[in-house]
């Protein structure tokens, strides 16, 4: 097992304590994010996903519990907070709404500039980040507000990638994009993961998305960790997932139905690719017999 880089210990967060609006968003959550893994955090709307991830870079302080980055409490001092902001990159939902600079280049450079890097280093990082997300050089001098929705989203993600975080956390990075845009964004994120070995945390409520990339999954329900494990473990508990208002991936449903018809499929079938290879293996086996 890979070693953890980021951990939460019995994290609890209560909004507006002591008022009629008091609400416990996250309760007693202990999770760990391991070096270089792709972790999917899944939960329906209001399950505490967004609150949880804002703890990961000290944007929100826990009501109780701790967040440890490489074994050190990130809320310990101003330095530890700054360190966490640089090492844990957080891409919010609809990140294109935070663009503000005159040019794409300047906007991507905002993060590295705040890290007080040298001009050369900033330039290198901006171009590298732009390359990761497939933003062409000639777009760098354009205004970010002239770009298409998908392009804006990628520029915004580049703005976080330019800080070269060791953990990249994305909140619903594919929300509101067409299938092609979704695929491209996912490719960009995976490229960053493969080239830098950074851990990726993707927050989503889409099981199909999670199924196609996550090494490990955490399911949140009412602010608590309801399930944790490899995708096949999580998806094998379809009834419970549906009880939490989450759907299982389409292919898990298909596999379940096939199993009922007497087709012997392995438990770990939850993407189209896996289904194809499982079925061809089965077919081959039958012909061989």
């Amino acid at each position, binding site marked *: 097992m890979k070693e953890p880089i980021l951990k939460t210990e019995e994290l609890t967060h209560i909004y*507006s304590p002591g008022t009629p609006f008091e609400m416990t968003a996250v309760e007693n959550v202990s999770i760990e994010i391991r070096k270089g893994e792709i972790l999917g955090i899944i939960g329906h709307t209001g399950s505490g996903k967004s609150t949880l991830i804002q703890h990961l870079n000290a944007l929100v302080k826990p009501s109780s519990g701790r967040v440890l980055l490489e074994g050190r409490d990130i809320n310990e001092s101003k330095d530890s907070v700054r360190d966490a902001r640089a090492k844990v990159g957080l891409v*919010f939902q609809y990140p294109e709404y935070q663009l503000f600079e005159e040019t794409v280049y300047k906007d991507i450079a905002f993060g590295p500039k705040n890290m007080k890097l040298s001009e050369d280093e900033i330039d290198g990082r901006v171009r590298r980040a732009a390359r990761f997300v497939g933003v062409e050089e000639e777009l760098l001098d354009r205004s970010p507000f002239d770009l298409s929705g998908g392009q804006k989203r990628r520029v915004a993600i580049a703005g976080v990638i330019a*800080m070269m975080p060791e953990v990249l956390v994305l909140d619903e990075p594919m929300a509101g994009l067409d299938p092609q845009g979704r695929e491209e964004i996912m490719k960009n994120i995976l490229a960053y993961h493969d080239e830098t070995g950074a851990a990726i945390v993707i927050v989503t409520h889409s099981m199909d998305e999670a199924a196609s990339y996550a090494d490990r999954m955490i399911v949140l329900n009412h602010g608590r960790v309801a399930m944790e494990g490899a995708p096949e473990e999580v998806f094998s508990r379809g009834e419970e997932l549906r009880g939490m208002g989450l759907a299982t991936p389409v292919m898990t449903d298909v596999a379940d139905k096939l199993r009922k018809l007497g087709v012997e499929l392995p438990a770990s079938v939850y993407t189209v690719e896996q289904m194809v290879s499982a079925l061809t293996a089965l077919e081959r086996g039958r012909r061989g017999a």
Partner: protein
Amino acid sequence: MLKDITLGQYFPGNTVVHRMDPRTKILLVIIYIAALFVAKSWISYAVMLVCLTAAIAVSRINLKVMLKGMKPLIFIIVLTALLNLFYGSGEPIAEFWIFKITRDGITRAIFMASRIVMLVMGTFMLTYTTSPIMLTYGLELLLGPLKKLKVPVHELAMVMSMALRLIPTLIEETDKIMSAQKARGAQFDTGNLIEKAKAMLPILVPLFISSFRRADELATAMEARCYHGGEGRTRLNVLKFAARDYMGLGLGLTVLAVVIVLARFGL
């Protein structure tokens, strides 16, 4: 941080004060303010304080929340008290340099400070117990007669209710943008004044853009639902005065009368 702003916030509840007609509550606040300005003596202030305390108790508004809302006003209250302290007439009790404190100054300072505190608390009672929609509806009805003078009462009420409606949305949006920029290493509380002003830019630009977008979308949505001004518009819930409203108004007017009579007798 920004979420802690309570000024003008509505706390839902189901007490007599909450259920009261917004028109009654607006009128009562006006009566209350008038009475506060008429009040000149310990006795009349005590009467007002009893009314306020009773209203707070009945509405079950958390006193802590109320006091928290007063926080931004502490400076004004202290300043007013200090100014009044030094402007009293009569025999000085203490003196230094050009300042002198008199018995009259002390009473004045206490009166002025408590007048502001009670004034603000009273108006808080209105906004804490009345939803923004009810509040603007009440105002629209109360200002109704001005329509005869070609004052666009309905439009004003609509603008006000939309503005009120958008305040929490904008606060939430600001919070979100601030968090996003903080995640990119932005710092809002360090550096000199110019640096601080510059640091606001990454928040203000996205905020303005999204406000315009939101306004555009709202206008389109309203047009799509055939909004064309107040002409012939009806309400889902039409306001009607109930027994509690007459009682409330009666009580308010009685208190005002008592305070006026007390003032007449120099009390």
